[in-house]
C-alpha cells in the first residue's frame, strides 16, 4: 500500500490511505447446541485525496490500487474545497491492545470456552434456550498520509457473550466479557446471569409516573450515545449540539465524570491513533458534571479552530467500516466509579426500575438528549426485584434527568451491549425518570 501513497503523492495535493485487515473466528451456540462456525478474512482500503484543493474518497475491498486513485481523483473533481489538512508526522503512544495468544485461538478452543458456559448454565437452568457466542479476532490497521503520518497497529480480542430470552418472549438476560488475552468466563458472571434470569420468571408493570432508575452498565448507551452526539465537533459546528457554549457549565450530575480513554490496557478497542492518523489520548469530557470539552476529527477541528482530539473514527450509529467517512466518535468512553456497591443501591429503592436495556433508542431525538424507549429490566419494590418489566416505557432527556443522580456504583463493567462497541460504566442510580406503565 505504500506504493499507492507514493503514486498519490506524485499526482494529487495530498492523500490519506487507510488499510484494514480483519481476521476472525466465531463459534455460535443456539438453544444449548453448537450451531455453526464462521470465519472472516477481509481486507479493505480507503483513499482520501485533496486534488486541486478539493476532497474526494474511494474505497475498495481487495481493490486495484490504480483504480482506487482514479476513483478518488474523479470524486475530487466534484468535491467541496478542502477545509483541513491530512495528519502530519506524530509520535503515537504505546497501547497494550494485542496478545499473540489470542490471535492463535482456533474454533476448537472457542468451542471449549462456550461448552464451559453451557455446562454451568445447564446445571441451573436446563429448560432455557441458551445462546453463547465466542469470537477471536485480530484487527490490523495501517494509516499513511502524504503529510507524513504513518501508523500501524495490530489489536487482538476475545469476546464471549451468552444469554437467553425469557420463556415465550423475545427479551431476556445477556452477559458478555472481552479482553485482549485469552480468558474463561468467571463463575460470578454465570451466577449473576442465573440470578437475573430467575428474576424474570414473573412479570411486573409499574404504575405510570416518575420513579427512580438504577441504570445498569449494559444500558449505559442510553446516557453515552446522546452525550456523544452532543459532544461531537460536527454537531457543534453545525449548530445542532445542545452543548454549544456550555463548556465549564453543569450538564450532568456532579456525581458523573466521563472520560474517553483510548489507551486503556487490555481492551481490544484501545488504539494509539484514530482513523485519520491523529494520536489518541485520554481526555476528561465531563468532570463532576461540568462540561470540559468536545471530541473532534480533523474537519471539525479545523472548522472550530482547535486541535483534533484523536477521535476521527470510521463509525456510524449501527457499525463501523473502512468505507465510512471519519466522524467524531468515542474510542473507549468510561464513566468513573463511585463508592457504593450496586446491590446496596438496589436495596434503597422503595419502588424503582433496574434498567438493563432500552428498545427503540434510535427512533428518538437522541442528538438533543431525548429518549423514549421500551424499558428492558426489572421492577423493584421494597429494595427487592419483584419481576421483569412488561409493557413499560421510560422517557426523558439526559440533560434534565441526569442532573439528579443519587449514587454511582463502585463496580464497573464493559458497556458492550447495544450500540456502543466499547466502554466501561458503573451502575447509576438516577433520582427519577418518567415511566409509562400501568
Amino acid at each position, binding site marked *: 500500500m505504500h506504493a499507492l501513497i507514493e503514486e498519490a503523492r506524485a499526482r494529487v495535493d495530498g492523500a490519506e490511505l487507510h488499510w484494514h485487515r480483519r481476521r476472525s473466528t466465531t463459534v455460535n451456540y443456539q438453544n444449548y447446541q453448537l450451531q455453526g462456525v464462521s470465519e472472516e*478474512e477481509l481486507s479493505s482500503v480507503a483513499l482520501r485525496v485533496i486534488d486541486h484543493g478539493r476532497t474526494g474518497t474511494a474505497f475498495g475491498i481487495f481493490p486495484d490500487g490504480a483504480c482506487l486513485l482514479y476513483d478518488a481523483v474523479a470524486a475530487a473533481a466534484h468535491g467541496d474545497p478542502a477545509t483541513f489538512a491530512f495528519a502530519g508526522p506524530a509520535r503515537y503512544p504505546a497501547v497494550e491492545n494485542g496478545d499473540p495468544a489470542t490471535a492463535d485461538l482456533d474454533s476448537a478452543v472457542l468451542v471449549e470456552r462456550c461448552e464451559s458456559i453451557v455446562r454451568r448454565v445447564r446445571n441451573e437452568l436446563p429448560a432455557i434456550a441458551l445462546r453463547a457466542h465466542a469470537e477471536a479476532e485480530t484487527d490490523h490497521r495501517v494509516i499513511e498520509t502524504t503529510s507524513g503520518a504513518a501508523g500501524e497497529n495490530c489489536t487482538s480480542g476475545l469476546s464471549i457473550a451468552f444469554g437467553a430470552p425469557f420463556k415465550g418472549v423475545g427479551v431476556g438476560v445477556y452477559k458478555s466479557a472481552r479482553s485482549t488475552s485469552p480468558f474463561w468466563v468467571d463463575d460470578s458472571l454465570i451466577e449473576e446471569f442465573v440470578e437475573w434470569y430467575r428474576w424474570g420468571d414473573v412479570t411486573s408493570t409499574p404504575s405510570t409516573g416518575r420513579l427512580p432508575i438504577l441504570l445498569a452498565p449494559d444500558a449505559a448507551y442510553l446516557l453515552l450515545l446522546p452525550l456523544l452526539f452532543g459532544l461531537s465537533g460536527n454537531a457543534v459546528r453545525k449548530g445542532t449540539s445542545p452543548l454549544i457554549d456550555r463548556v465549564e457549565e453543569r450538564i450532568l450530575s456532579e456525581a458523573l465524570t466521563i472520560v474517553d480513554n483510548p489507551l486503556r490496557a487490555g481492551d481490544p478497542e484501545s488504539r494509539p491513533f484514530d482513523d485519520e492518523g491523529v494520536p489518541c489520548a485520554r481526555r476528561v469530557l465531563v468532570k463532576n458534571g461540568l462540561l470540559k470539552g468536545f471530541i473532534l476529527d480533523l474537519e471539525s477541528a479545523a472548522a472550530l479552530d482547535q486541535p483534533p482530539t484523536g477521535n476521527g473514527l470510521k463509525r456510524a450509529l449501527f457499525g463501523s467500516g473502512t468505507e465510512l*467517512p471519519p466522524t467524531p466518535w468515542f474510542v473507549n468512553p468510561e464513566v468513573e466509579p463511585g463508592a457504593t456497591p450496586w446491590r446496596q443501591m438496589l436495596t434503597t429503592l422503595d419502588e424503582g426500575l433496574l434498567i438493563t436495556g432500552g428498545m427503540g433508542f434510535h427512533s428518538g431525538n437522541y442528538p438533543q438528549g431525548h429518549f423514549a424507549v421500551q424499558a*428492558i429490566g426489572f421492577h423493584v419494590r421494597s429494595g427487592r426485584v419483584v419481576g421483569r418489566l412488561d409493557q413499560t416505557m421510560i422517557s426523558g432527556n439526559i440533560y434534565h434527568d441526569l442532573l439528579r443522580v443519587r449514587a454511582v456504583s463502585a463496580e464497573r463493567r464493559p458497556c458492550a451491549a447495544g450500540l456502543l462497541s466499547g466502554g466501561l460504566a458503573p451502575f447509576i442510580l438516577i433520582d427519577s425518570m418518567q415511566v409509562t406503565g400501568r
Partner: protein
Amino acid sequence: MKDRLTSLVTGLPADYADLRYEENRKIRITYQGRELTQISSTTGGGGHVRAYAGGGKAIASFSDPDAATSTARRTCASARIVGRMRECPLRLADAPAIVERFSLSPKRDPRSIPLSEKLELLAHYNRILLEEPRVITTQSEYDEFASSRMFINSEGTMIEYELLNVGVYGMIVAKKGDVVQRVRFAYGGNDDFSRLVGREDELRDEVARACELLDAKPARSGICPVVLDPSEAGVFIHEAFGHLSEADGLQNNPSFRERLSVGTTVGRSLLNVADDPTIPGYPGSYEIDDEGVRGRRTELIHAGVLVGRLHSRETAAEFGEPLSGNMRAVDAVFTPIVRMSNISIEPGTSTFDEMVGSIDNGYYLVGAKGGQTAGDQFTFGAQWGFCIRSGRIGPMVRDINMSGELFSTLRNISMIGDDMEFGERGGCGKGSPMQLNRKSGKGAPHIKIDAVTIGGV
C-alpha cells in the same frame, strides 16, 4: 472465474456447499448543510462460502479470490466438527437446481448516468432544503449500490444475477430557540433513477413539516388508541410481526416457536398480511435469493390466522414448511439470513375519517422514524403526530415513540383503511454482525390500534 469456482464447489468434501462471489460498486454523495462532506465510489469483490457436512454447518467470508480454495476446504472441515457436536443434524430442504442469468432492465439505469448529474440533483435538492432559514443543517445523501453476483452450489445451481438500488435520502434539521426537530425523507428505493427526479414539491412539504414541529408540544405518555398512517403501519407490521415471521429467529427458541404455530389466531378476521418479492419496483423486489431459491409471494396472516412463514432451506427443512426464497445477504462480507422482502398489510374497508371519528382521546401518528423489536416486544418512532380529541384531528405533537407487545397489539387492530401505500425507504437492520439492508419494502393502509403505550413527557 466461473469455471474455476464451479469446479471448486463441486469438488468440496461436503454434503452440500455453495459459494457466492460478488463484484460490487457503491456511489455515495453526502451533503451536511452546505458542505459536500462525501463523494465516494467503492469497488471491490469478495466471496462467501457455506458448507454442510456431517450434520454441521460452517461459513466463511473472504476478500482475496485466491483464498477461495483454502477457505472453502477449511470451512468443510469446520462443518464436520460442528456436526460431531450436534444432537440434531442440520438439513436442507430440497430445492430445484437452477442454471440461469437474471438481468435487470431499469427504466433509467443509474449506472449509465454521469456522477456530475447525480451530484447536481442532490445539490439542487439540498439547496431547496436550505432556503428555509429555520433549517440549520441537512443530511442529504445519494446512495447507489450495484452488485453483480454469481451463486454456485454443489447440486448444480449456477446463477448470475444483479442487484441495483438507488435512492436519495436525508434529514432536515430545524431549530427554534432550544427546540431542534428532525424530519426524514426518502425517494427512490429501486433500480430506476427517474424516480428520484421531480420531487421538489414534496421536499418543500417536508421542510414545512419540520418547521411546524418546532411549535408542536411533546406527546404525553400514556396508553391510548392510535391511527397509524401507511408509513407507520408499514413499519409496525415489519418490526412487530414481520421479524417473527422470519423462521431463523424462531428456529432455536422452542417456547416462542410454539406460540407461533401455523394455524394460530393472531388477529381479528380483518387482518391479512403477505410478503412478496415478485411485485416489481419496490425496495424489496427480486427474482432470486442469495441461496439460489426463487422468490415468491408468501401469505403470512389470512383473516387473522397465521398461515405462513419466511424460510431458508435449512429452516424450511426443520419446520417442514415450503421454501419461500427469503435468504439474503447485504454483501460478500455477510452470510445470507432470512429476511422479509416487501411485507404489507392488505387494504380493508374503513375510511380515514371513520377511524379518526371513532377515537375520543388518542393520536394520529405519521411518518416512520425507525423501530426495534425483540421477539414479541416492539418500539418505534413517528416523525410527527396529531392529537385526536372527540373524533377530530387536533394540534400537532412531536417526540413520539410507541411500544407494545405483538400479540395483544395485533388483536387490537380494529380498523384497516381502504387505502394502500408502499414506502420508498427500504431499510432493516438484522443479524450479528448487523446487516443493514436497503432492499426491504413495507406497505400498508391506515390502521387503527385500540391501545398502545406512548412514551412522552
